[in-house]
């Protein structure tokens, strides 16, 4: 049996298995920390930088921090809120996130976090990304101008023999997501739907299915992002 460690999150004592990452533990205990690249059960990527928290006063990404004895974690304060909001704003200007005509609107994690952080308009200049839409494969499409380079698809979606279907190409500012057309063409409808659901934005698109869910029935029409995690707040209210 693995060793348990005791520490605090926002002043409340928490006990968890040593070696688990802080983001998962916080989530299991009802503390919502926003993240766009994290998937439970997969090795943390630390790429979106949104899950910044304060550990013993120092800002660190929760997904790449392992819980340890006596650590004092702050998940929410003014400085963290501003930092997260700035990171989100940077993501919006880096790509073309035209929510009004995007079929992921209402189920998009990036959009939901923007609402949660009350982003009305970004303070940075738009980059007006002009990357080619990859639509040559019959059932799946990549709208690269919406990609936030979270690597979730690269890490989670594999072919039957374990090969990567998605990957990065180029470097630096030109870095972009791409897919192996041959492997992508072999994906089942379920695989494509899974890839689309994993994508936190509107980059991976299952072709010809857009806008099937009416407004009012979409994931974040019903509840804001993080609502299902934030149990501790409910307890506090009680």
């Amino acid at each position, binding site marked *: 049996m693995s060793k348990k460690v005791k520490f605090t999150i926002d002043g409340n004592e928490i006990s968890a298995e040593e070696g688990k990452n802080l983001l998962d533990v916080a989530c299991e205990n009802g503390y919502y920390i926003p993240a766009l690249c994290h998937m439970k059960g997969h090795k943390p990527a630390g790429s979106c930088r949104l899950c910044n928290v304060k550990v013993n006063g120092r800002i660190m990404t929760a997904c790449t921090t392992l819980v340890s004895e006596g650590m004092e974690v702050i998940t929410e304060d003014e400085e963290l809120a501003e930092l997260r909001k700035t990171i989100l704003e940077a993501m919006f200007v880096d790509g073309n996130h035209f929510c009004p005509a995007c079929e992921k609107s209402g189920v998009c994690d990036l959009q939901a976090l923007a609402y949660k952080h009350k982003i009305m308009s970004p303070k940075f200049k738009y980059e007006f990304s002009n990357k080619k839409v990859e639509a040559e494969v019959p059932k799946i*499409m990549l709208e690269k101008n919406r990609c936030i380079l979270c690597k979730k698809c690269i890490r989670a979606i594999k072919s039957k023999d374990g090969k990567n279907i998605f990957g990065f190409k180029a470097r630096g500012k030109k870095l972009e997501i791409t897919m192996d057309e041959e492997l992508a063409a072999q994906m089942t409808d379920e695989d494509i739907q899974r890839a689309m659901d994993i994508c936190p934005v509107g980059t991976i698109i299952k072709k010809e299915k857009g806008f099937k869910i*009416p407004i009012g029935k979409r994931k974040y029409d019903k509840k804001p992002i993080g609502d299902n995690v934030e149990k501790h707040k409910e307890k506090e209210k009680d």
Partner: protein
Amino acid sequence: MTKKITIDPVTRVEGHGKVTIHLDENNKIKESRFHIVEFRGFERFVKGRPYWEIPVLVQRLCGICPVSHHLAAAKAMDMIVGANSLTPTADKMRRLMHYGQILQSHALHFFYLASPDLLFGYEANVEKRNVVAVAMENKELALQGINMRKFGQEIIKITAGKKIHGTGAIPGGINKNLTTEERDFFLKGEENMNVEQIIKWARGALDFFKNYHSKHKKFIDDFAYFPSNHLSLVTEDGAFDPYHGVLRAVDSEGNIIFDKVDSTDYYKYMGEQVKNWSYMKFPFILSIGKETGWYRVGPLARINTCDFMPSPLAQKELEEFRSYNDSKPSNSSMHMHWARLIEILHCAEMVQKLLNDKDLEGTDLVKKGNKQEEGIGLLEAPRGTLFHHYKVNENDLISMANLIVATTNNNEPMNKAVNYAAKELMNKQKEITEEMMNGVEVAIRAYDPCLSCATHALGQMPLKISLYDSNNKLINQKIT
């Protein structure tokens, strides 16, 4: 010394336009033009987008009647996905959305934008030319207008998900049906949202107009009168139908120019001309030619081209309208208001009929067939016939888009109306007054132009009029 008058911006219209009027040495109208001064380029930037995104994307052309663009694009996409017909639920939900749309858009125009022209006249003080002044003068009428518009928007919300820029229509169908609660809200709900009440108010608005007409016959019948051709969609048997039909064009006397033209053949019968002083194109009927092939669209054209209204109260009103015009098409610009009110009544009647139709609660929402490379969707938007034409490449991305919007069709008629009003009000006048310039706007406003849609343009609403002397020197200007 010749003079040039510019009205810039034109007010109480959707979008941004200006009028220029040239006067000669004797203050006689030499030339007048209605310019649309903005450009947006929707036809270009939808290229490369996936086809299923288009109905949601192109509706951003406008915030007043986005449903028209949403549905016209969806109709084109129905062709792309090979849906030759829709399920009864999808067809009727889309129709309900469209009737709600026409109702709210017409109510907005008549009560908010145009009613000051009728209540106070074009020579009224500037401070009276708005809906607030209407509310002070005739509270009941203003409130009815507000509630009728709200009703139409609520109908859009239950069919498209949102009052403005929803997502209801998808290629091959619709993404939701009607729930019993949604239906009962309009059939059994509070008075202001009850369809029976809306029908009563629509009839009341017609009575108001007819009463006004009886006292101002010359203004309503003669102001900006000019003969023209008329074009609209009608059903195969000649019924008024704003959602779907065949193209019919008649001349100013009611003689058929063409009839039963399949909407997908529109380009064989119609052309577009470009002029260097406006971003708005000039469409014309090919068989007649550029000079005289222009035509009116919108409420007046629809009322002129159809054989009958498929709802009892609106049919009675049509008969009265026809009888007044000696069973011939009306060519009076101000009769546009009359026709618009008949359409409001028809839409309210059709909404009532559809709300009582069980098909709306069906669950079969989408149909698809063999995919096509080209899709054409036509419908009658509140302001007239709307054409959406797209081509899709082998990767499901748009490779061509052509949009001819209602106001574009009315480009030449609006120019004619400006010319008429300018001649009527300004010819040989010693001084060009602000009231005269407002009179020019009244003529334009009767067409309820949506200039944002027409040039797919982005901008503020008002219009500007300027007066220039023979040396092109600005000597007077009005911005409202």
